[in-house]
């Protein structure tokens, strides 16, 4: 780790001082390398050809020897469909349970296609139309009346003006009537501004990536009119233990740097154990398919496993020997699995005694987990 001289709080931050840099910043070198050797035709407004975008997400070695790290571990098919969708003028809807990498994929797609992943609208239950369309600078509005100067553009509007990719997170959390604001934008590629009797037409290259969670209760289903403007790509949970272990390892080591925890990666064996526990609890079935299990209320996705491993690293670095111990894993695990004390604790106890206790080589983890329990 490199030490930085403390800078004044108001000075612009360097990349190293950020907790987390945007994708286009963090992977600027890879994007540059891809751009340098990309000879294929690029759709208007795109920084890379569709082929290169897929390569950026899936990783690989380029002809000129540059190494592209994989961003998405899963079927290339899905990324191909996603990129091809954005080539046509349909918008892309990424669907999946929490932690399957929807936002992650969306951010990287935007970064690779237009070099800007920041045109982001976070969907919430209480949001109004102005968050999607535009708001007003009321001081200006009162002083001079409606004018282009008084207009406060939304990220969507900026994306349209500049021909970039806009991102909407958690589309289904947005109230239905507000969602439908998107219909005009997606079908007409234009945003009417009735107050000024004008409209903003989108520049070529504009498109929209939305993510939606199909697990939450109380989601606002898309109207079929809106649904028709989207192509859907369902991101699944990792298909095998090995795949999931790989995802967790990759992300933990890269996050480890960002979170200034020691650079000693956790042992594969620990990752494998956590991933195994998560997969079993997620499916409600042991990996050998012999024992049925109760499922806890938390969604135990790969993303959760990543944060558990990170927590282990932090625990061991700051409070332990620096080496990840079973105790670190146990306490991090418990925090992830038991979200609702009354509901999840019995499930976790049952898992410990039914599955973990008898498993060979898991004795230390079992003991540690038992001790963590009150």
């Amino acid at each position, binding site marked *: 780790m490199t030490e930085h001289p403390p800078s004044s709080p108001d000075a612009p931050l360097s990349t190293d001082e950020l907790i987390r840099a945007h994708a286009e910043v963090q992977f600027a070198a890879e994007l540059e390398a891809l751009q340098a050797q990309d000879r294929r035709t690029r759709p208007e407004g795109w920084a890379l050809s569709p082929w290169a975008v897929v390569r950026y997400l899936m990783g690989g070695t380029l002809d000129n020897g540059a190494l592209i790290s994989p961003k998405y571990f899963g079927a290339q098919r899905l990324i*191909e469909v996603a990129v*091809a969708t954005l*080539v*046509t003028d349909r918008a892309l*809807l990424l669907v999946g349970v929490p932690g399957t990498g929807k936002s992650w994929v969306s951010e990287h797609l935007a970064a690779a296609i237009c070099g800007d992943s920041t045109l982001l609208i976070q969907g919430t239950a209480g949001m109004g139309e102005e968050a999607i369309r535009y708001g007003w600078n009321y001081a200006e509005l009162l002083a001079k009346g409606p004018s282009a100067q008084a207009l406060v553009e939304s990220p969507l509007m900026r994306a349209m003006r500049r021909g970039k990719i806009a991102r909407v997170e958690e589309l289904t959390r947005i109230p239905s009537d507000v969602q439908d604001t998107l219909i005009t934008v997606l079908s007409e590629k234009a945003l009417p501004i009735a107050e000024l009797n004008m409209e903003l037409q989108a520049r070529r290259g504009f498109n929209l990536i939305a993510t939606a969670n199909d697990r939450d209760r109380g989601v606002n289903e898309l109207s079929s009119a809106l*649904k*028709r403007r989207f*192509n*859907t790509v369902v991101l699944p949970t990792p298909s095998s233990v090995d795949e999931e272990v790989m995802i967790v390892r990759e992300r933990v080591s890269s996050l480890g740097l960002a979170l200034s925890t020691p650079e000693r990666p956790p042992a594969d064996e620990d990752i494998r154990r956590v991933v195994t526990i998560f997969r079993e609890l997620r499916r409600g079935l042991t990996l050998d398919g012999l024992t049925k299990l109760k499922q806890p209320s938390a969604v135990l996705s790969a993303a959760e496993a990543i944060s558990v491993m990170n927590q282990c690293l932090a625990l061991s670095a700051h409070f332990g020997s620096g080496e990840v111990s079973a105790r670190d894993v146990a306490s991090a695990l418990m925090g992830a699995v038991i979200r609702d004390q009354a509901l999840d604790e019995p499930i976790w106890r049952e898992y410990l005694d039914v599955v973990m206790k008898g498993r060979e080589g898991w004795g230390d983890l079992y003991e540690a987990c038992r001790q963590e329990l009150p």
Partner: protein
Amino acid sequence: MSVHYLGVRHHGPGSARAVAQALNALEPDCVLIEGPPEASELISACLREGLTPPVSLLAYSPKHSGVSSFWPYCEFSPEWVAMRYAAERALSCAFIDLPVTHQLALAIEARERLKRDEGSLLQASAERVELAGAEGQQHPRVTWAYELRRDPLGYLATLAQEGALEPEDEGGERWWEELIEGRGELSGEEALAFFDSVAEVMQVMRDELDEVQRHTGPLQGPPFAGAAREQLREASMRRQIKKHSKGHQRIAVVCGAWHVPALKAKVKASEDGALLKGLPKDKVTCLWVPWSEARLAHDKGYAAGLKTPAWYRYLWRYPARDALTERWLIDAVRLLRAEGFNASSAHVIEASRLASALASLRERPAPDLDDLRDALTSTLSLKDSHPLELIQAKLVSGTLMGAVPSEELNHPIVRDFERENKRLRLKLSDQPSATTFDLRKALHQDKSAYLYRLTLLNIPWGTPKVRGGSGLKGTALEEWTLAWEPEWVMRLIDAGSYGDSVELAASELVTQRATRGHGRHEEPLKAHERGAAGGLSLSALTALLWRCLRAQLSAPLPALLKSLGDEASLTHALDELLDAVPELIWMVRYQQSAATGLALSLLPKVTSQLLPRIFAALPEASVQLSEELTLALCARLSSLHRALMTSGDQRYLQAHKPAWRACLERVMSRAQSEPRVRGLIARTLFEQGWWSAALVYAEARVSLSAREEPSRCVEWLEGFLTGGGLLLIYHDPLRALIDRWVCGLSEQDFITLLPLLRRSFTSFSYEENRQLGEVLMRGPHLSCTGPSTSEQAHELLIAGRQLSPSRATALTHATPWLGGRALSLAEGVEITSLAVQEER
């Protein structure tokens, strides 16, 4: 004279298009096709109206049942295209494969050998294991040779793309499809050049194989298993090409690409002659039979499997890829719309744009099946698997059924089959469909009988829905599920050896089964399946008789009934007799209205012979039985009694009723008879009015007397209470007797017997229990047993709830009697202990 070899992939639409173009360019005067030579004269039939692919050539041995071969063709089979080309121009055209007469004979020999050598099979498999072990340390070229022989195209694909293919099984297929099958129209010259290069590449591959085998000797193992047969086939093809070359100028040979190098090779006629000399022969008949896409996709019964027949049909019908994409998506969307999905033309447009974008992203010249599927899934936002399965079934695998005019199906029974189908308005389809027949309508009755006849011939086209019980009683409605398998045509032809129509064949087969136990062409019965007379067992004969009646076959009835009578007189198994007789009695009833009724005048006679045997054996058979056997016997007795009594309108049975009563009384007169059986019979005699209440009361008093073991009493009671508690409600003395018995049990006995007692009491309906409870509360005997007032009963419920929540409540609810006794036993503690006892 020139010979042109068109090496194709069987069922390849691209190959088929190339064949069509090449033939147009060549204008041959003779077309030779890889196929069964015996069927050459059937080629011209491919133009006939009503012969629509998928169809298959069938060659079978009339002498040996079950030996047959199929050569299926669809509209995009290169062979089919070549046949039609030749037939349209009336060119000389022939099949040139190894004659089926040898192929079938070889197959029969192999089958015989297999039967003979069953013992040495173990050894053979051991050798195979050894071989597999040796394969481990082979020279890479040998490993490749295996790979090459297993899947030549896959091998090529790996070479062509340096193994860059996705690790999927169909890697080779996909590559070939993109390169060959999926491409549009070729010009004549292009097509000819294409066949030249195919021949060339096959030559290289076969040379490599020969080269390897020169070092290793002939390779063994699965991919090489057919090597000897392949040699024969290729020799035969060479010989026939030579034969046809006399008198023709330009000959086009359409055969599998793999064979081209061998057919081109210069081999002396005498060598081929020596190889083909002395092959075994068998008589062969060939005909066209209908086939289906589903069957093509299943890869059953012949070598060249095809995963996606419907997709290939699209490839064939729409050579322009844009048109193909549009058409396939439109059909998919229409299909989904019919299933209630929200799918519009706009979706087709979006899906086709996405598919094109995907194809270019994946660097394919045009969208292939994967792209189309992905595009459709994404645009329609299909999340569950049902719509995708639907598309897979209809638009990828396909559901098309071929047809063959009945004149072509050159076998009397097949023609009869077609006629009957037309008459009965039944359509062949391999998609299961449900239908209901109303047996009061003549046509429906015929349909039902027809399907039963086919089932007798091992052609289970229709499956009747089995209702609970024997299926003998019930309504005039029959529910059937119909699903036809194209290969059953073969079974039909097999059946043709028994008779020239479905009815005659079924009659003859049933007669043979009835007299000898099995049909002439069927496997003989195993020893344990044989009945006492050496033929079918009594239950099998009864079942056969039943199916025969349903099939409205009267001809086999005399033989069947005779065997039934013989078997019945020889068998010692009372169970079988007891099972058979009620069935027979029901059959007589059932048949009174049906066409075979006349022949059934014999059935009462058989039944009349069987009944005395039962009457004689029953008393002896009701002693010393295990609980399981006792229960089974009780069930059989009940069903026989029901059959005898409810068929009161049949005169022949009247005579047996007194004998039945006497038989039952004889069982009762034996003290050793099982108490459960006694209880049941006592009840039966009483209900029938054959025994007075006083007699039954006496019997009950004896059976429930204090000197009897309590457990035997309970068994008696259970037998007696079979069939409901109504009797106890209205028969005061009996109720009082049982009441007294329940009250008189010692506490210990009561607790021990409680579960058993509960079982018999809870078999009553709720209504019966309620009434019984009321009667008991009112009754004079209640003072000693149960709650005398409704308040008391209510208290009991509350007490029960407090003491042992659900269980005591359930107890009192279900059987007021026992609950009352429980309360009279103790103030609470006992109820808990009862509950515990019960739980145990």
